[in-house]
């Protein structure tokens, strides 16, 4: 039995409604990172299934300003879809886009597979430079891509979790077009004896002083969200609207103060649930004494 996220949707709505105002002149992350304080900011779904088997969304790429020195710190901020364990040392599989500091200070596609927390593997970055890269160039700001994290189970499948990247297609949503399966795990949540797994659509920062993708005037959009469940048997469950059996949990976050609202203690990270298949996130400037938006 899984423990569900505590949701306060009314508070979410209130926070979002209160967030409409004059766009800030500029967004700025912290000049220093301080202690690590990861936020995962988005939606999660379990639908009562022991394991969820997939999450996909059409995501609009936005910039994430990073705390500290981007040339040397090596920190990251990202947006992705994910199958995430829910208890103990359950791991995760995710893919999406990331702002990667260090040498390149660039946005790249990425995936990350971690069978258990504490596994040795970190993110794998996919530079967009010829052979080996995805064919769409860098994930530029304003571009949109479909990301799928999908556990291929059932007859004829390999029973692994796959990281699939597609170009967005407004003409034939939600699946995207020109898809590439880039990589897959060598495990699945059931085989790894995870306690459970959720479908997740989220932005992520490593630190409260790093920005989540999106600004007030240019939200990071996740739309055409779809989910899949794991139902043991020969036929893999199809993708479905996550509102089919309920609604995804909102305000998915880690280590943020437990206010239950969808903004953090600095009122920087915001989330607006547009409908069951779309939500937007964005970040306001650091100003703890004067919540700006």
């Amino acid at each position, binding site marked *: 039995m899984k423990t569900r996220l505590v949701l306060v949707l009314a508070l979410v709505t209130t926070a979002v409604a209160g967030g409409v105002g004059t766009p800030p002149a500029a967004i700025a992350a912290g000049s220093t990172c301080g202690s690590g304080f990861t936020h995962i900011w988005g939606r999660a779904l379990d639908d009562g299934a022991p394991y969820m088997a997939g999450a996909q969304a059409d995501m609009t790429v936005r910039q994430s300003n990073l705390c500290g020195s981007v040339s040397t710190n090596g920190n990251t901020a990202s947006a992705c879809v994910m199958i995430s364990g*829910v208890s103990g040392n359950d791991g995760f599989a995710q893919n999406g886009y990331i702002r990667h500091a260090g040498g390149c200070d660039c946005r790249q596609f990425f995936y990350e597979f971690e069978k258990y927390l504490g596994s040795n593997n970190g*993110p794998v970055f996919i530079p967009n430079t010829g052979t080996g890269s995805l064919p769409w160039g860098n994930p530029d700001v304003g571009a949109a891509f479909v990301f799928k994290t999908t556990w291929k189970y059932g007859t004829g499948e390999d029973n692994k979790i796959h990281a699939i990247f597609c170009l967005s297609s407004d003409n034939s949503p939600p699946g995207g077009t020109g898809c590439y*399966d880039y990589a897959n795990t060598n495990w699945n949540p059931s085989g790894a004896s995870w306690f459970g797994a959720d479908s997740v659509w989220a932005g992520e920062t490593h630190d409260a002083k790093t920005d989540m993708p999106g600004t007030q005037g240019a939200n990071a959009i996740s739309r055409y969200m779809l989910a899949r469940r794991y139902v043991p048997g020969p036929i893999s469950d199809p993708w479905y609207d996550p509102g089919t059996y309920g609604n995804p949990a909102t305000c998915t976050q880690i280590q943020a103060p437990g206010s239950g609202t969808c903004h953090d203690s600095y009122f920087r990270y915001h989330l607006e649930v547009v409908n069951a298949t779309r939500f937007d996130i964005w970040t306001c400037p650091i100003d703890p004494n004067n919540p700006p938006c």
Partner: protein
Amino acid sequence: MKSTRVVVAILAALASAGVLIAAAYASAASRSLPVASAVIATSAEPHPEDDFFLGPAPSDFSPKVSADEAVAAAGKQEDIQNATSIQPTLATLTLPDFQPVDSETDKPIGPPVVQDVPVWVVTVDGICAASSATRLNLDQEDGSVPSFDPCFYREAKIMVNATTGAVMLEATFRGPSANASNSVP
């Protein structure tokens, strides 16, 4: 005319000095990196956890890109200035599952894209990318806060195409001390 020549001469001297200074700086910077001598992979190194495969270098292959150039390319992908060791290794890269798939069924519709491509694998140790924790604490409603390793990853393998010099992939690893401090209460 004469004054023009003097100015040109001065500019040329300054430029030369600048070049010399830049060259000296670059040389010093290069010397500061703990780059080991290049080696040639003679055996396979599978990475099933990240789904890539490193094979031995082709016996008859002569890379157009030098090991130094590969390290320089790696340095544009990852911050390697504080690395404790940098090892370039000539090998081949295969991404066994990177292939086009149908957008609805997710079934393969073409062959794998990257097979046995000669690469320089630049293995970088001792870096410390800022801490992160990529997991939801859905079950931690008691408000407990997991503790995490301050270094998100400490090691990277940066695959540089040995023919074109392009960075193809960067895989990162937490390193040997990650597990000790990456605990969840």
